[in-house]
């Protein structure tokens, strides 16, 4: 993996005229003082009408300001509704003209970092449903819930726009049930679960073949060609590390740092900037895989252990208990809906 293929929280790679512009527009419509909403972000009002790029950290700070300065709790949801097609140009065009939902999601997987740099999507498929595990790509910390609300609403409203109808998604969130549950119900639907071990989105596979209202192969082809000109790295820093860990379970800190052509100490420092430790990431990847294999796929201990490259079962059971708080057999019993 070469050094350029990921972006860290302080890399200025996100165009300012997209999410930042929507955030400022929304704050203005709620009569928030524009100086206050930009405070501490290092963003200037002129930036949103320029080719300037911003870092994830700047955008997260802007989200924090907008969330606390606008009245009510619907900021993330209303922004999510405006996100697509928004000002994403070629990316939006490619999605709009895709053939069916499966096609749209395939394109989304390719261009995801351009439209959603904050969240990683790992797509799994079971017999009847698609199961997406969502993780923090750059270190959102306290803004994770806002980011989750924003992009989940964007997903629901974009799919509705593509297909001309709303399809039911099941959302599992890692945070506690908020007081303003009505916003979740109205914007995301009623299939909600909170305080879950990992964040996931799932839906019935039958929807994948639903045709998009505006499908056009030629327009999509042209839009995809334009998308390639954008030089946004595909993976967030945390996301890149998780990819390496999940491919090479036996890798320790030093090995992974080498993979990124960094010294152990500068690798650790960079991780700290993202609010994570190496152990935390390792545990997260383990937890995710254990939940997918045991809870979603309902595999046996032996099968799961070998998939996760564990040599002995007792060690596997201990690790699962540490990651999720549940033993493998308990985890199998708590099935996902």
């Amino acid at each position, binding site marked *: 993996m070469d050094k350029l293929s990921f972006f860290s929280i302080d890399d200025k790679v996100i165009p300012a005229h997209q999410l930042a512009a929507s955030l400022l527009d929304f704050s203005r419509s709620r009569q928030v003082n524009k100086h206050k909403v930009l405070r501490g972000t290092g963003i200037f009002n002129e930036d949103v009408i320029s080719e300037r790029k911003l870092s994830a950290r700047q955008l997260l700070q802007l989200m924090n300001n907008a969330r606390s300065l606008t*009245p*009510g709790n619907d900021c993330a*949801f209303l922004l999510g509704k405006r996100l697509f097609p928004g000002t994403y140009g070629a990316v939006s065009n490619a999605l709009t003209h895709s053939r069916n939902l499966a096609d749209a999601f395939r394109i989304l997987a390719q261009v995801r970092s351009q439209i959603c740099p904050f969240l990683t999507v790992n797509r799994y498929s079971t017999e009847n449903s698609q199961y997406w595990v969502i993780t923090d790509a750059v270190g959102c910390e306290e803004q994770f819930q806002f980011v989750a609300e924003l992009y989940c609403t964007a997903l629901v*409203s974009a799919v509705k726009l593509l297909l001309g109808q709303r399809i039911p998604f099941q959302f599992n969130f890692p945070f506690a049930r908020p007081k*303003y549950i009505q*916003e979740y119900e*109205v914007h995301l639907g*009623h299939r909600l679960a909170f305080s879950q071990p990992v964040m996931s989105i799932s839906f019935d596979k039958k929807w994948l073949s639903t045709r998009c209202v505006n499908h056009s192969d030629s327009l999509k082809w042209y839009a995809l060609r334009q998308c390639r000109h954008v030089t946004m790295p595909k993976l967030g820093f945390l996301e890149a590390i998780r990819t390496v860990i999940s491919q090479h379970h036996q890798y320790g800190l030093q090995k992974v740092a080498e993979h990124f052509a960094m010294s152990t100490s500068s690798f650790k420092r960079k991780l700290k900037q993202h609010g994570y430790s190496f152990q935390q990431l390792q545990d997260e990847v383990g937890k995710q895989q254990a939940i997918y294999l045991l809870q979603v796929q309902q595999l046996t201990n032996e099968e799961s252990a070998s998939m996760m490259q564990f040599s002995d079962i007792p060690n596997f059971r201990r690790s699962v208990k540490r990651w999720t708080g549940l033993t493998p057999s308990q985890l199998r019993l708590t099935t996902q809906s």
Partner: protein
Amino acid sequence: MLLSQYDPCAECKVCQHIFGPYDMRINMNLSLLAQHQRLFSVACASLTLSLTLSIGLGQAKALADISWLDMIGEGSVALLSLAWIFFLLVSRPPGRVTSALVIGLSCFLFSAVLDLVDEVMFYEHTATGLSMIESIPSGIGMLIMSYALYQWHQEQLILNKQLQKRESNSREHDQVDFITALYSAEYMRTQIDSQLQNSSSPGFSVVMLDINNFDLFNRQYGHDQGDHLLRELSDIILMNLRSTDLACRYAGDRFILLFPDTDLRTAEQIAEQIKLAIANIAFKPNQSGESVYHHLTFAAESAITGDASDSILQRVNRRLDMFKQHGQAHG
């Protein structure tokens, strides 16, 4: 007015310091101050007159003779009455009640200032009249204010009547929705809870209503027009309610209505009337000649014994979603 881009309060440093996080146009509308030029001069006149009279006619006391405790006590009375005048001027529109309150307080301020300066000034025999009349303005001020407070009470009763369908038996201004000025879902939950607690057999109904294709409208005409539409629709909803009913904004384009002591049929009837009223409103976005008509979908539920606010809200929400899905399938 709320939609205008120009925001005179955005740069105001004073209110930013006083009132933390929200922008000032939400919390405090300083534009009212500009409408009170006369009352503002009354307050200023009272302040300057009392200061010139008391300082001009006396001579400064020696430092040792000043009672600092009295100074602090009387100083704070003067300062606070000044602050009260300020808050009256920025929070009330001009009118009889406002005038009486400000004039009363100005009289009081006059006496308070005399009292305060009294502590640091020493008066010759020629000026003894001043200390004699010191307490008269404050007495008059109190009388005027008592009259004004009684008027305020009358005014409040009228205002409460105006708010009737927006508000139930409690007032929580921080739960009011910014866009529609209706109460939010949180307030409705409390009201449903109190309905459930107050009667042994709950006899109330709840209606949830939702605008069809609101997203499409927002995309076509912009979000400002969408907000504008929500405000207009909330007015029409209120117009069609009885005085005992309550309307709140739930979330997004969803409204929730509470009908105390009402069976499901009556609630549905009223909701049907609202639906009809809204279908006949020709909304004109962007001041153009074009008219856009809106249609609602609604669902009603009655409370059953052993209900909780969450369960009744869940039932009515699900039913509404079912109706919406059904409507979608049939175009």
